[in-house]
């Protein structure tokens, strides 16, 4: 089953968002076809940015929401209707600047939501200012003399915030990205995927990443060792690891509150078809 829409895709030719778009599309189509996901049970969200238009390009119920506030919005959806698969696309501006605190709190709360970050190290939609993942020295629209701030390391940050699934992908390696996204979607609890995404217009990092990335899955790295994951996450120089850094099954927020919130979760959701019939 195809999940594409008629909407014309508006990203610049060569934009890294295409890789993310295609990887997610094949993961969803495959899993819907194989009956592992139900299309009617999926809600996708995005914040505001170039990447945010992604929700227009999939034929899935979607919520194009507020810059920076995606983790709480996704939390609201999931808690109101725990049977949904809630998958959220966010930008680095969204996740690490405007909404940084939300990203951290969603991770430590371990609500079953999926956060997929289009990390292009720049504010694309507002045309080229530095973000919290732009490197020092980055010359952007608001840093004509070079960025003087230190970038954050999203992987280390999310590990320290106790996210139960932490991964990094590269949109230039679609097969590998599909593998990560599939694992992220089926992880129970909060999943975090930071995707290295070149912005060909304002921050073209294709060759930079291509010459540095290597897959953790090609090494003897294990994903169940917390301290080692933190150490591994610090590697970001001549070699940049991509893959799953850490995954752990832990009680999700929804599970933890179930004992005290039975009424809410066991209430009868009215059969809408009845109501609709009455109205007609």
């Amino acid at each position, binding site marked *: 089953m195809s999940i594409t829409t008629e909407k014309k895709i508006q990203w610049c030719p060569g934009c890294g968002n295409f890789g993310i778009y295609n990887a997610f599309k094949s993961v969803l189509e495959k899993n819907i076809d194989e009956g592992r996901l139900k299309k009617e049970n999926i809600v996708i969200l995005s914040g*505001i940015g170039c990447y945010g238009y992604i929700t227009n390009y999939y034929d899935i119920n979607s919520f194009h929401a*507020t*810059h*920076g506030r995606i983790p709480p919005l996704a939390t609201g959806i999931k808690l109101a209707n725990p049977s949904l698969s809630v998958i959220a696309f966010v930008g680095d*501006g969204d996740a690490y*600047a*405007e*909404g*940084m605190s939300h990203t951290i709190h969603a991770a430590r709360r371990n609500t079953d939501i999926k956060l997929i970050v289009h990390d292009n190290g720049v*504010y694309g*939609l*507002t*045309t080229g*200012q*530095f973000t*919290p993942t732009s490197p020092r020295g980055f010359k952007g*629209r*608001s*840093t*004509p*003399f070079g960025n003087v701030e230190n970038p954050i390391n999203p992987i280390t940050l999310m590990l320290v915030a106790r996210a139960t699934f932490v991964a990094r992908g590269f949109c230039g390696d679609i097969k590998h990205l599909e593998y990560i996204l599939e694992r992220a979607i089926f992880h129970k609890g909060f999943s975090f995927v930071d995707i290295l995404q070149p912005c060909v217009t304002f921050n073209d990092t294709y060759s930079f990443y291509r010459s540095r990335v290597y897959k953790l899955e090609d090494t003897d790295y294990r994903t169940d060792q917390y301290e080692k994951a933190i150490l591994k996450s610090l590697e970001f120089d001549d070699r940049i690891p991509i893959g799953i850094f850490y995954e752990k099954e832990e009680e999700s927020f929804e599970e933890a509150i179930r004992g005290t919130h039975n009424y809410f979760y066991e209430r009868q959701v009215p059969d809408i078809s009845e109501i609709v019939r009455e109205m007609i």
Partner: protein
Amino acid sequence: MGEKILMKGAEAIAEAAIKAGAMAFFGYPITPQNETPEYFSRRMPEVGRIFLQAESEVAAINMIYGAACTGTRVFASSSSPGISLMQEGFSYIANSNVPCVVANVMRGGPGLGDIAPAQGDYFQATKGGGHGDYHTIVIAPHTLQEEVDLVLKAFDLAEKYRIMVVLIVDGLLGQMMEPVEFKETVDVTKFKVPEWATVGQGDREDRIIITSLDLAPEGLEKMNLHLQEKYRKIEEQEVMVEEYRMDDAEYAITAFGTMARISKTTIELARSEGIKVGLIRPITVWPFPSKTIENRANQVKFFFDTELNAGQMIEDVKLALNGARPVYFYGKMGGIVPSAEEVLEEFKKHLGGQHE
């Protein structure tokens, strides 16, 4: 006196703030005002001052709040959604009595809306978008030269009353190129630290405390009364308004900013058809020029208010008139800017066939 330089609005406002002695700029990217922070990011290092792109508008307004507490001239700009996020800071700044100047380049709303010119933030700006009983002075220029002149005036007012001054403009003014003259450059080496500023005690006897808190209701009432006293004084002394072709007017248009600019053309068109119409243009929308409007009630047959929203300033026009004359309205939303001809056509609908 300087010479006239052709400049883009979004850059002219930044240069005006620099010439007015703004020592620091704090902001966060948002369209349609990105050229303003971009200009500051180039110029502030040149003049040895501060430019900082914050992690959010909430951070930016609190950097302003902090810097303002030290008695430093500070400036920020943003656009509607960003200004909404700053409202908590606006309220705290009001009750802390610290001066600063913030520009809102208004865009279509509510929510994410669009990036086209709009005036839907009038209520938020003039009625206090944050919590509590407070006002900021709100200035609405309609040309680049006026904007440039008013930036300097805004800092003077902010410091005179220890209050926040908000400039409301829209993307049209920001994108426009017009010749501007910077009439004065403030010598920042002459700045003195005000006695209320938190800059380290030095040999001052009492320590300075800046706060917006008083848990004792009587204490908080006193803070409020102080604010209200200040607001009454501003209402008495600082109203700015332009009356355009009102001397012989039989009808009055009320409009601010971009719509006032368009209305001036509408008025020329109307007058060429023999319709005597003038414009009352609030330059400060708070304090509002109620008296000016009231004074024209007996002269004109009706008022015609036009705005880029569903009708916001019209409430203040009606309050000023207190029912003395009818007030009609024409507005456009969503970032659509009507032409002078469209405004005229709408205006003429209320003439009752007298000028067909």
